[in-house]
């Protein structure tokens, strides 16, 4: 069972008291530990202006978590809990691991390509590398 990485963002009403937020966060954390998931990152982005009105509010408090788990049904449970909370006006879960895998693959491919064809530095004279065909026309031009 491969590990999945999720981004969970929720927006709370502005000026929600601290203990209500703590209740929401602890509910998330309990759900994660019950299902054997790990919370990798937990951030508070502060009160931001919303791009459009949500539940008649123009501002909201953004909270961000990054969760690593092998079980997808954890997300259903988390969203159910967030939906129930009055303080939370919006939430979004994004699955990240496929995107990160693709990013890593492209990065590796790029590095491999760069390593295979070494670029000669601009200042130094061309190094005589017998294998590369680019050296010969350069020498011929010189």
């Amino acid at each position, binding site marked *: 069972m491969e590990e999945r990485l999720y981004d969970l963002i929720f927006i709370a009403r502005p000026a929600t008291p601290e203990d209500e937020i703590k209740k929401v966060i602890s509910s998330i954390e309990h759900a994660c530990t019950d299902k054997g998931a790990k919370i990798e990152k937990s951030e508070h982005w502060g009160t931001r202006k919303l*791009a459009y009105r949500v539940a008649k509010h123009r501002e*909201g408090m953004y909270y961000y978590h990054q969760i690593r788990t092998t079980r997808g049904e954890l997300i259903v449970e988390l969203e159910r809990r967030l939906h129930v909370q009055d303080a939370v006006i919006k939430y979004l879960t994004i699955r990240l691991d496929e995107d990160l895998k693709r990013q890593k693959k492209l*990065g590796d491919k790029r590095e491999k390509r760069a390593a295979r064809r070494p670029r000669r530095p601009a200042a130094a004279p061309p190094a005589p590398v017998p294998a590369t065909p680019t050296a010969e026309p350069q020498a011929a031009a010189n």
Partner: protein
Amino acid sequence: MAEEQKQGQAVPSEAPARAEGGAPSHGGGQGGHSGPRREGGREGGPRREGGPGGGPGGPRRGKRQYFRKKKVCKFCVEKMDLIDYKRADILSQFVQERGKILPRRMTGVCARHQRWLGVAIKRARNIALLPFAGSAAGATAPRAVEAHKS
């Protein structure tokens, strides 16, 4: 019917002019429709193209396909393999004032990154980091999300 045809034939010089003018006569009805509209489109072309850069090398009036931004894709240059939906400041460069996604020919983004950009922008819209098109369009410039030390 025959009388109208005779009238059309009797005044041949006026008929094409009428068609050009756009009066929907029976003879020039079909042609007259597309005529003025196309003229209007051509005139509207250079007005739009004159704004961002003027279209290098192509004729000013004319079809829009001469307009081509010589820019390269910003994401390819920076070698960005992942377009983060949380970076509203980056994404907002590719979004109009009203919230609509800018087309590739305006921004110079390559096809692959334009697809990823669309996905990221739609995600950001869902979490209220960017506006949906036409809804309370940005009074303030979107700023990057910063983690607060809580």
